[in-house]
């Protein structure tokens, strides 16, 4: 590896981070958007390049300024991080490409550069979490991304976003604090912050009690950030009232990045050293996952605001992801990582389509949506495809992860049968809530001015359909995410004794 390629992991973070203050200076109309999109696109290309390298069987290890770990700052990109980098940068780029018109209508022009600057900070922060190799830098990047994302969520014209974001802020801060307490405890016992170094040094720790406490703090703190049921209270409000483009961006990746940290920390540092921790891990998270699937889907079935409905569906989908990991098996982890990717595709498509709809209708409550889609057949088509993928209809991406999840559950014996029942019931509930959207927007007689709506602008539709067709593509040719998640699952599990 020579030249620029060796520096790719750091470029992933540094470029958006440096662009963030510069964007503020770009006052002329459209320029800030163009710069942000270009940066995001570049980040995506870097992620693609990183993925290619990782797929070649290499793990990238980068030492900032040549200072070697554990003293310097180290970055680390393996297939797990590559998978999430793809999701993150892809979601950001698609949301920006499609979202120009939507952002223009929701954010007044003078504030736009600030908005885009915050966007880049979120991008840089989340990318930083994914490449960082030590616990403290993860915390720093987490704070950068969180603070910036509060700004993004509150940036829209909807005043109801303010209480929602306040809730998000309070809960997010508690989560981050818990995480920091946990990291502090581990540091106290081991004297290191580098994850791999921690793994090695915990062997020498005689008294494991503080480590156990740390595991508790870290798990709960990150579960809060990842909106694991019942700590999901901040999520529906934040997703519902955020500007539509921001919802596309955050819904596809924000919670998944927190889950990434949770898994990495748990599998690399704790599982190997705490006796019986894998059982504790499974016993703690599996019931939560099951409840998330059932309760999240049930609430979504009765929700009457389109964005809130999809937000509750996200709570349920996080449940699926957790369910796979809580099986602590290669197949289960593969299913779970695969579902991160596939859910991002499906939910991304759905929220993109919602953004198209929101541009034309006055309100996203079902009572105002009746008959709207008939005038917007292309938007509706994409919405349908995203919905089918979310349900897990064969031929779509969602089906592949469900298939793996059920296969993994089959290895669990009697418990597995119960888990399959949960997965199946969850999928059927998804049929119900997706179908409610279809019936309302397509079959109900049009209300208000819904009979005279026009289709969303072409660029938006193109991006939305690109994302919708990706659901089909990765449903029929899933080898890329499959290889990444398979390798990642194996490398996570190899830390187990």
């Amino acid at each position, binding site marked *: 590896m020579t030249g620029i390629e060796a520096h790719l992991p750091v470029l992933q973070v540094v470029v958006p981070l440096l662009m963030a203050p510069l964007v503020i200076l770009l006052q002329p109309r459209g320029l800030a958007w163009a710069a942000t999109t270009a940066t995001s696109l570049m980040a995506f290309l870097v992620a693609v390049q990183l993925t290619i390298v990782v797929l070649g069987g290499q793990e990238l290890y980068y030492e900032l300024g040549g200072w070697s770990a554990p003293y310097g700052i180290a970055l680390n990109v393996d297939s797990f991080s590559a998978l999430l980098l793809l999701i993150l940068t892809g979601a950001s780029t698609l949301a920006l490409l499609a979202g120009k018109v939507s952002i223009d209508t929701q954010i007044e022009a003078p504030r736009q550069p600030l908005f885009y600057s915050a966007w880049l900070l979120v991008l840089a922060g989340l990318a930083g979490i994914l490449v960082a190799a030590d616990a403290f830098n993860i915390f720093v990047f987490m704070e950068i991304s969180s603070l910036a994302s509060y700004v993004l969520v509150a940036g829209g014209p909807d005043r109801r976003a303010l209480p929602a974001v306040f809730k998000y802020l309070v809960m997010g801060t508690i989560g981050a604090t818990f995480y920091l307490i946990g990291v502090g405890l581990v540091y106290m016992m081991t004297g290191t912050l580098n994850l791999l170094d921690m793994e090695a040094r915990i062997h020498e720790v005689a008294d494991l009690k503080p480590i156990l406490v740390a595991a508790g703090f870290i798990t709960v703190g990150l579960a809060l950030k990842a909106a694991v049921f019942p700590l999901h209270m901040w999520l529906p409000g934040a997703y519902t009232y955020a500007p539509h483009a921001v919802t596309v961006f955050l819904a596809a990746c924000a919670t998944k990045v927190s889950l990434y940290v949770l898994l990495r920390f748990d599998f690399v540092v704790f599982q190997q050293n705490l006796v019986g921790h894998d059982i504790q891990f499974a016993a703690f998270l599996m019931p939560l996952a099951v409840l998330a699937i059932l309760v999240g889907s049930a609430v979504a079935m009765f929700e009457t605001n389109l964005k809130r409905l999809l937000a509750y569906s996200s709570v349920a989908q996080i449940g699926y992801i957790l369910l796979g990991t809580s099986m602590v098996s290669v197949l289960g982890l593969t299913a779970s990582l695969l579902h991160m990717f596939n859910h991002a595709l499906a939910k991304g498509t759905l929220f993109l389509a919602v953004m198209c709809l929101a541009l034309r209708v006055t309100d996203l409550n079902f009572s105002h949506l009746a008959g709207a889609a008939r005038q917007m057949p292309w938007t509706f088509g994409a919405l349908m495809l995203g919905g*089918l993928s979310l*349900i*897990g*209809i*064969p*031929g779509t991406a969602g089906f*592949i992860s*469900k*298939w793996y999840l*059920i*296969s993994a559950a*089959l290895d669990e014996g009697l418990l597995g049968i119960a888990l*399959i029942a949960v997965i*199946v*019931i969850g*999928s*059927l509930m998804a*049929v119900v809530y997706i*179908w409610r959207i279809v*019936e309302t927007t397509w*079959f109900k007689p049009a209300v208000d001015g819904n009979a005279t709506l026009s289709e969303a602008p072409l660029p938006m539709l193109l991006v939305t359909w690109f994302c919708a067709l990706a659901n089909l593509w990765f449903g*029929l*040719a*899933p080898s890329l995410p*499959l290889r990444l998640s398979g390798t990642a699952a194996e490398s996570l599990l190899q830390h187990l004794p």
Partner: protein
Amino acid sequence: MSAETAILLSLGVPVAGAILIALAGRISPNLREAATLVTAASLIACVWSLLPEIYAGGRPGVQVSEILPGIHIAFQVEPLGMMFAALASGLWLINSIYSIGYMRGNREQNQTRFYVMFAVSLTATIGIAFSANLFTLFLFYEMLTLSTYPLVAHKGDEKTIRSARVYLGILITASIGLFLPAIIWTYSVAGTGDFTPGGILQGHIEGPLVGLLLGLFVFGAAKAAVMPVHRWLPAAMVAPTPVSALLHAVAVVKAGVFTITKVIVYIFGIDFLFAEPSSGWLFYASAFTIIAASAVALRQQNLKRLLAYSTIAQLSYVVMAAAVLKPLAEVGAAIHMLAHAFGKITLFFAAGAIYTASKKTELSQLRGIGRRMPITMTAFTIGALSMIGVPPTAGFVSKWYILAGAFQADNYAALATIILSTALNAAYFLPIIYLAWFEKDNTPAGKEHGEAPFAAVLALVITAALTLGFFVFNAPAVELESQLVKPLMQGQP
């Protein structure tokens, strides 16, 4: 044309047709209808060109892609699928002729969407017929469910949508809740889901689990309408009659029994199932469905709903024949798919023709209608006789084989079921025939009517002729389906 090309073309032609129909629909209805007919005719050419090779014992196949390790999208043509595809494609052409008469006669809305979704449904049907493994079959099975939904909900009013919701709800729930777990289970124990002569599950699963897995398949493939997952079929009757005729008498429902038969023959293997007592319940479940659905049909006052319940009973004939688990009965199951299709599509055509000509839907309105619509009611009579199984109609042939299979297995319960249900069939069809021909006309003044539009009448004459013709010319079909169980037939009387 090589067999591989023919298989892929059979799948591609309806899709291309759908696009063509959508484009032509913007120009003129005549062009659109021409596109439908040309597509249907080309599909017949593609599908039927495979027949000689299948007769010769060939099993052409083509693998499209590998989705996951060991899981492929692949197609392979074997006798059962060949027959199903030939049947569906052949009747599509006739049904298209009928649709033109019906849709125009009733001035239906959104006709372009109707023809487009019809073509898409046919793709799914051919996909099901030709699929080489469970995964591919499931893919097209779901596609068929989704693509027929707009057809069922065609009218778009509140009542229709409610019925369509039942339709979709039951089919999707069963397929995701039962069928999919059964497929994944099969793949995980056997390592494959390929349809293999003799089955793949022997030695991988035993005891009560066999019965359980069979149950997941049978109720998961709810399109076969084995009770209690039959409610969607009467609900689907809100669709325009051509949809009921081709899809809910032939393509969709046959896709269900086709799946079950295929799973029994190629996944379990009939000898394996016969030796496994835990699979015995299927026979009784289907026998119960036959009797119960016939009894419900007795009480129906609406012609289409009566036909729907009759379909439920007839579908379970196929399932029951397959569940007898003897070679001749499997042949009977396959032949009954064909025989029932001819008869039932004729009946639906007749019901639709009556509706188009007179807007009559209830049995009580049919008094003396035979004199106003003699051609239609003659065809209806032939169809009804076929349902009962009276010679010289198609229904007699398949009952013959099913009975022969029942004797092979010394299964007298099957015999009793068939006799009882024949009596019930006669009890609900003969009064209609009597009503139509011998009672006095009660059409109110000012509502006089004659026959339906020419296209509709033409179609039902063709299918009625097929119903009669099949009584004499059934040898090709029987010969084809005997291959299904050929290795098993040798050495047996």
